[in-house]
């Protein structure tokens, strides 16, 4: 491996708004900005990712999180995806009225949506209210575990829960029970099955000092390594971050509620204050297209407003 490639694979690429990229043979390649001909999605399975809607948060810089969630959903609806993934922190405090608002707004789109919990959704009764409401109809990997998998047009989707039973001093955690289930779940799938793994907290260490990582993610990634196409989608850090490691492409989504600072650039990871008129530039949704027979998966991040 030459130095240039090593550098490419080891560094995290900070990406601005509205950039389309593809991954081909493990190397990310920028195709162009949104709105150019090259940014037109190819035919295939297209789905959207939304994250961190934090319904119930009503402070600087966003006193209308239902409003910005609705704006994000309007953007998703306009793109006609086959389905949607929500990568957690649906609510701010796991309160029933917060879950109600999110469920009604997202339900009104009519788009099939698959959820995994963020730590803000797991505050009451070991997450049972979240599982009962947002994961009903899923085949739970363990009773009320908050993790499951499903297949869609030849793609295997795995929703992981790394916000339960966190250990003092640690980061996100999957736990032995979930890792054992993941091993069994993947055993039935051949190496050529495209995988999309989604979880709230990043499955690699973004910034340990802020807990932005998952303690036992290496064990999960080891199970994913034999597959030819793996896309890992996370939320939690309220900003776009992309990284490629072998056949595994990582992508974190923007929040629909408020931005957070880049790792280490502030005393803590609290909400980043932005001028009111500029908030929607830093919120957004991701649209992903998987084209069968091709090794790349295209991700288009779109801000709510420019």
């Amino acid at each position, binding site marked *: 491996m030459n130095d240039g490639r090593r550098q490419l694979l080891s560094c995290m690429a900070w990406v601005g708004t509205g950039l389309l990229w593809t991954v081909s043979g493990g190397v990310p390649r920028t195709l162009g900005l949104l709105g150019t001909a090259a940014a037109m999605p190819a035919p295939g399975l297209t789905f959207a990712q939304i994250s961190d809607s934090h319904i119930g948060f009503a402070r600087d810089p966003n006193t209308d999180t239902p409003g910005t969630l609705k704006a994000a959903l309007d953007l998703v609806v306009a793109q006609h995806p086959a389905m949607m993934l929500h990568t957690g922190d649906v609510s701010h405090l796991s309160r029933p009225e917060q879950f109600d608002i999110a469920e009604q707004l997202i339900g009104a789109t009519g788009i099939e949506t698959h959820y995994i919990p963020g*730590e803000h959704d797991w505050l009451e009764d070991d997450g049972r209210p979240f599982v009962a409401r947002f994961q009903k109809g899923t085949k739970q990997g363990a009773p009320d575990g908050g993790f499951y998998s499903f297949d869609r047009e030849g793609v295997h989707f795995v929703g992981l829960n790394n916000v339960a039973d966190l*250990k003092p*001093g640690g980061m996100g955690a999957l736990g032995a029970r979930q890792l054992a289930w993941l091993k069994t779940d993947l055993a039935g799938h051949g190496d050529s099955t495209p995988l999309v793994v989604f979880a709230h907290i990043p499955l690699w260490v973004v910034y340990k000092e*802020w*807990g932005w990582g998952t303690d036992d993610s290496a064990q999960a990634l080891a199970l994913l390594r034999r597959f030819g196409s793996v896309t890992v989608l996370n939320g939690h850090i309220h900003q776009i971050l992309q990284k490629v490691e072998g056949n595994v492409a990582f992508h974190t989504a923007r929040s629909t509620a408020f931005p957070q600072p880049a790792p280490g650039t502030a005393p*803590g*990871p*609290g*909400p980043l204050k932005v001028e009111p008129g500029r908030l929607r530039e830093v919120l957004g949704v991701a649209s992903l297209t998987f084209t069968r027979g091709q090794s790349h998966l295209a991700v288009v991040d779109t801000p709510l407003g420019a």
Partner: protein
Amino acid sequence: MSGLLSRRRAALLLAVLPAVRAGAAGVASVTIDNFTFTPAVLTVAPGTRVVWINRDDIPHTVVSDARPPAFRSHALDTDDTFEVVFDRPGRWGYFCALHAHMQGTILVR
């Protein structure tokens, strides 16, 4: 402005304490700011009431790291408080169950 409000709330707590629990040796507080418990280690006498105040605009929790936990708060929203009276000497570690890298210790002696 919010700092002023927090101080007023803390003062109010102090004022009502004798009525809430007779025999409490005193009050000490831990503030949560920028995803940090301050002070990280708080030493108090037995019988002290420890009050945590969340001054972040993100919720946090206060959960004993004993198994099972010796104390556990609900999610504390901005300016919410949580109190525990420490009667017995000992070392009580705790953390935030939402942001597990946040840790603190109460030393009772």
